[in-house]
């Protein structure tokens, strides 16, 4: 393609198939802890 360059495909929709196992780290977003957006968490179910 000349006008568009895809950096990342549809990983999110693919994740529905196997997701939700709950093995990943819990992820607090508040300012007093390991605050973080969920998106930088690691999935433990690769």
């Amino acid at each position, binding site marked *: 393609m000349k*006008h568009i360059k895809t*950096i990342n495909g*549809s990983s*999110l929709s693919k994740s529905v198939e196997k*997701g939700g196992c709950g093995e990943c780290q819990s992820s607090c977003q508040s300012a007093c802890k390991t605050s973080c957006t969920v998106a930088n968490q690691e999935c433990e179910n690769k």
Partner: protein
Amino acid sequence: MKLIHKFIKNGVPIVLDVNSGSVHVVDMLVYEILDWYPELKAGDIELKLENKYSREKIREALEEIKHLESIGQLFSEDIYDGLTASRFGKNVIKALCLHVAHDCNIRCEYCFASQGDFNSGRLLMDVEVARKAVDFLIKHSGKRKNIEIDFFGGEPLLNFTVVKETVDYGNRMASDAGKNLKFTITTNAVLLNEKIIDYINKNMSNVVLSLDGNRETNDRMRHFDDGSGTYDIVSENIKSFIAERGEKSYYVRGTFTRYNADFSKDVLHLADMGCKSLSVEPVVSEKDKSYAIREEDLANILSEYDILFSECMERMGTDREFDFYHFKINLDQGPCAVKRLTGCGAGYQYLAVTPEGDLYPCHQFVGDSRFIIGNVFDGIINAEIPETFKAAHVYNKPGCRNCWAKFYCSGGCHANSYKLTGDINSCYEVGCEMEKKRLECAIALQVIKKLKEEKNDQEVS
């Protein structure tokens, strides 16, 4: 709902397709077409843009847009509504936050825990309660292999003996149960010494140490009982800690308030001090506090994030590079959709335990007795609270449903929402604006990094 978000950062036009998670770099023609597409027909779009671009180019770009649509990478369908309830069916608890000390050795102005005691008087957790908490976690963790305990306070190092006893007991019980139990600790770093550092490095998979930035910023909010600042002691201790930590994970974290709304200087101060993993976050407080962030501070704060973005760009690949937590994002291998919809899991996957053994949805709710879920001796008594929290996911929060950031932000922090609006299901708008800004920076950094790598590869080959 089909949803895209587009923005230009550092001159790079970026388009995010929200439902698929696809990220594209586009030229200005496509960027402008997306102002009109898909509401307008191709012919009308051509009329809108024909002064700037040739009809042939416009058609070519439209074809590319349609192609991405056909492979589900642009304007893709929302397939997630209704997914959560079925997937996270059973309530399985996988993490506990142990408040081993409702007491603190410093007095931070903005402390949400009322200077450590959560309005309940100074109290240390005894080992019996801690053991019961471990038992409770293992019993309620179902088939989950990975479980976690965070030592929290007040200041957990004020009850270090119980921390150590809990680690010993937890390791024993977890190995009997075939679980992988990880420990983490959140500390103000005042009591760190060689022995404690050594212990922490051996036993804690992640460590969070608090320091707000330079001496002036830090000491204004974080001081001892007599009013003297904590900067000198804490910054030295943190340096010693980092020197020993090796490759293991840690975060130096700070809080910014309206007093240092120019917090980028504090982030850079910490980075130049040698802290490679950093997080500096907006204070969460009731609106009437003098240090609370107000709506009129927002423009300034957003431009501070831009400053940090530029610094991160400039330092990329050099030894001055650092990780700013809020700019970290995992575009391809991040969490699954279910996790993104539900976020922290407070109240049903993650609970806080007080020194007395009471269970709360998370550390931010501790002290508000309306939120007591049960206790480690009798288990869960009020099962309604976990259900309420479980239902508080992106699709049940009216403000989040159609927000482009929903799969990254996961609907934000329930406690923030509760403190500022009285309802865990509503949004704190100033917080949302900051979150969206940070996400744009995070996505752009990944994109630019990838473009750079490709360019380098091409030059090599």
